[in-house]
């Protein structure tokens, strides 16, 4: 093609479908305003669903939903799932999955209570739980990063094995500590007005979300996490040590499961290796997926996970408020998750570019 032909081709209507997507030329593409609107829509994601649910429950529940007291309960209910979901976001962003968070939470809560019963050193229950979670997370991470085993298989194994260990730790019984030294973590509220306060659990969850956002969007580590999930081959070729990133994300997931263990131990003054944290991994995964994070990795945001966790908590709370039975709650929750993600998929396909 000669110089003149090129110019002609530039001026002409794009002939092939691929050329039709050329946005650099002239004004053929989107205006920057359209790009902005699009990115805002992408960022807010499921927020409208959350707001609609809240308003609907408020009217159906005759004004009982959007009260300071009830919102504080919702925040408390969402907190642990939020923390687990944050860890899960790291893992899913690399294209992995962590099915063992519920079991790690149980084992960590057991550690917390066992150590909390040591006279004079009760507060050490907190680091004990965190280290327990971190240990199992590193174990998962090593198997994925060094042995190259599929994350689903590794964490399916530890889902079962760590659950067994959690039961073993308490000889398969419930451990109580009515004088738990760190009970404030689970039960204290920071009063804002009379009748409304922010639970410490919710503050912890928010701190975890904000810290995760900083790591994901403001540090090298975060860029590498997105790179490893978005294009593993490219990450490797650009000199990123992929094994380090994988080890890190599973360690974070374990550590945050440990924190979740502290939170639920503190809330309940007790831990039971068999029951605690059962199927929490599913709620955490649901929160991440509701938040718009792609299951194949590389795309997603931690704010989405926060909104996802809130949607799940609002559903549970709202349905209970309306007197819907536990059985129907399961059914409705499952359908809302599928429906919300289907909606999201449809919306994104509308925006899809070649």
């Amino acid at each position, binding site marked *: 093609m000669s110089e003149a032909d090129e110019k002609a081709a530039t001026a002409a209507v*794009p002939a092939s479908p691929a050329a039709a997507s050329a946005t*650099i030329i002239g004004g053929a593409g989107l205006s920057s305003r359209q790009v902005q609107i699009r990115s805002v829509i992408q960022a807010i994601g499921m927020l409208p669903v959350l707001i609609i649910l809240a308003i609907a429950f408020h009217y159906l529940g005759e004004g009982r939903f959007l009260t300071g007291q009830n919102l504080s309960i919702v925040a408390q209910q969402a907190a642990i799932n939020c923390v687990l979901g944050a860890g899960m976001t790291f893992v899913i962003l690399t294209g992995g999955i962590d099915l063992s968070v519920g079991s790690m939470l149980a084992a960590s809560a057991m550690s917390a209570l066992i150590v909390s019963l040591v006279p004079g050193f009760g507060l050490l229950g907190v680091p004990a739980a965190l280290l327990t979670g971190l240990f199992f997370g590193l174990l998962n991470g090593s198997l994925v990063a060094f042995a190259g085993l599929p994350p689903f298989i590794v964490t399916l194994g530890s889902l079962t094995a760590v659950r067994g260990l959690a039961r073993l730790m308490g000889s398969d019984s419930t451990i109580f500590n009515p004088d738990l030294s760190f009970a404030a973590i689970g039960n204290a509220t920071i009063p804002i007005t009379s009748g409304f306060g922010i639970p410490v659990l919710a503050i912890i969850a928010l701190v975890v979300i904000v810290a995760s956002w900083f790591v994901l969007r403001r540090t090298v580590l975060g860029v590498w996490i997105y790179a490893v999930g978005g294009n593993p081959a490219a990450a490797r070729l650009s*000199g990123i040590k992929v094994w380090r990133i994988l080890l890190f994300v599973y360690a974070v997931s374990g550590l945050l499961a440990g924190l979740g263990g502290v939170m639920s131990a503190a809330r309940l003054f007790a831990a039971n290796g068999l029951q605690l944290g059962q199927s929490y991994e599913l709620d955490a995964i649901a929160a991440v997926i509701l938040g718009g994070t792609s299951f194949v990795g590389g*795309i997603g945001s931690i704010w989405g996970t926060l909104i996802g966790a809130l949607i799940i908590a609002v559903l549970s709370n709202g349905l209970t408020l309306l007197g819907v039975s536990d059985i129907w709650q399961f059914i409705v929750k499952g359908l809302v998750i599928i429906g919300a993600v289907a909606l999201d998929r449809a919306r994104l396909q509308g925006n899809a570019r070649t």
Partner: protein
Amino acid sequence: MTTVPAVPNVTPKGDAILQARGIVKRFGHVEALRGADFDAYAGEVTALIGDNGAGKSTLVKILSGVYAATSGQMTVDGKPVSFASPSDAHAIGIETVYQDLSVCPDLSPSANMFMGREALRPGLLGRLGFLDNPTMRRESAVAFQKLKVALKDMDAPIASLSGGQRQSVAICRAAMWAKRVVFMDEPTAALGVVQTARTLDLIRRIRDTGVAVVLISHNMRDVIQVADTVEVLRLGRRIASMRNTGITVPDLVGAMTGALDAVAEPGEQGVAA
């Protein structure tokens, strides 16, 4: 033999910046390269062509540090080199634009430009791994401007850009870091007519900055449009090296498929245009 115009070993502008001799690569029993030679010159576009299975991709992967050669020598600026990883090649200024572009969808153009080589904040924050986003954005903008690439949004995730723009980012990334050689693997394969023309322009602009551009392509018309030299691989060997002065598509196809063997002796001789 030396009187034939456009034959191998006619050095166009002094010595080759990148030179490979007798590169052999075996994968088990398969011999992908059987003593391939290659030369690329600063400030020139060298096209590397060959039929499927000729060994183009393997050769490029060896020259850019992705694979290690089974045997053979490489020199850069006349000095022998060997690469254990792409990072080694990056360190001496050799970059590659892969066919899949090697970009990460949810990262901004500037984050993609600096992938694996991020700029960090000064002081303690930098040691903690905090990114210096303003610097990366500014330097990316300079790189885009230098190559006359206009992006709508420097902060939007790259997945929201068009295919052509994504490719511009990948090419600008290579150009920004390359001090000596840029390899481009089939840069126009997925593009329409207009975008192809723009990409070829981009290739010329990178060449004009003084680095060596190596273009791997199946599209003979593209090759004739931009190449200064054409290196032809067949069955794992360099079969011809031609200056792009009046060569035609049939010449290139003939050299690739061996139809011109009667005219030029394989491995030794170039193809007269």
